[in-house]
């Protein structure tokens, strides 16, 4: 549906985005192992991006076809990134 208005939901998402941004900057200063840090950063970024897409861009209220029309093309670069990371890890194995 086109006209979904839920101000309480908007402010909740604002709070979530604010807290997750602080968490993101916080984990960088923690000084944890780089692989763990990268997984944490990627997870936090994806949750934030999903919050913006689902609630601010109203994807939650669109039809599932429109949601998938958007989600599938936008996830292709992420899949390509996964393939590249796997390939890089494979090459660095001590053969």
């Amino acid at each position: 549906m086109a006209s979904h208005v839920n101000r309480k939901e908007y402010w909740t998402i604002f709070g979530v985005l604010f807290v997750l941004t602080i968490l993101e900057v916080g984990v960088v200063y923690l000084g944890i192992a780089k692989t763990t840090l990268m997984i944490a950063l990627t997870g936090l970024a994806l949750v934030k991006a999903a919050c913006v897409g689902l609630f601010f861009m109203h994807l939650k209220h669109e039809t599932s076809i429109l949601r998938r029309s958007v989600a599938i093309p936008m996830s292709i670069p992420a899949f390509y990134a996964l393939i590249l990371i796997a390939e890089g890890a494979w090459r660095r194995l001590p053969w």
Partner: protein
Amino acid sequence: MSTSAVSAKDAASKHGGAAHHGAHGHGHDVQGDEHEHWQPDAHYGTASLGKIGMWFFLCSDALSFGGLLLAYGILRGQSTKWINPGEPELGINFTAALTFLLICSSVTMVLAHAAAVENKRKEMLLFLGLTILGGALFLTGQYKEYFGLGGPGLIEEGLIFGHSAYASTFYLITSFHGCHVLTGVIYLTVIFIRALLGQFDGGKHNHIEIAGLFWHFVDLVWIIVFTFVYLVPNTPS
């Protein structure tokens, strides 16, 4: 809708004939433009053509950003030393503030859309104005980051485009995003003027929602850019 009737009267008394026409001719139509009447589609529901078109564009734009970020990832992943001697590190705290600014402007954008749906003219104009202000402040922040304002910028500190993969990918990605913010500010200014002329009175929120999609996408991309360009630390894995 009682709220709609009250604010329509308010708009009509303040803005004369044009607003009067808008409020009474289309006050019952909250689904979008008078040009965009059709039966709900079996697959796309009541999403307007303009909205689907914007999503098409955003998908292609996401692939552009995806290409730039993947090239950055490949270059950085292969390098043994990412930051060369004499090159500055990126400031995280200032950019975190810019990230927060964009999130705030996304909130004012959804609130402007909400006001447009509920036919609250003044509130719609206020929040559209705040969104434009947020975008303009972000651009000022990016100017300060590049060229310096009350202190040296990255260029003065030795991060020169073309001198290293670090510098080139940084400027390419962030300036491509900055162009999107600038486009968004211009786009929203046009929307603001059209709103001021009364074109979105009476609950005609479709164009505001479409402009909002673009603006939220710019915010969404910045979340990704901030994470992978700024937050990934410069330590060996």
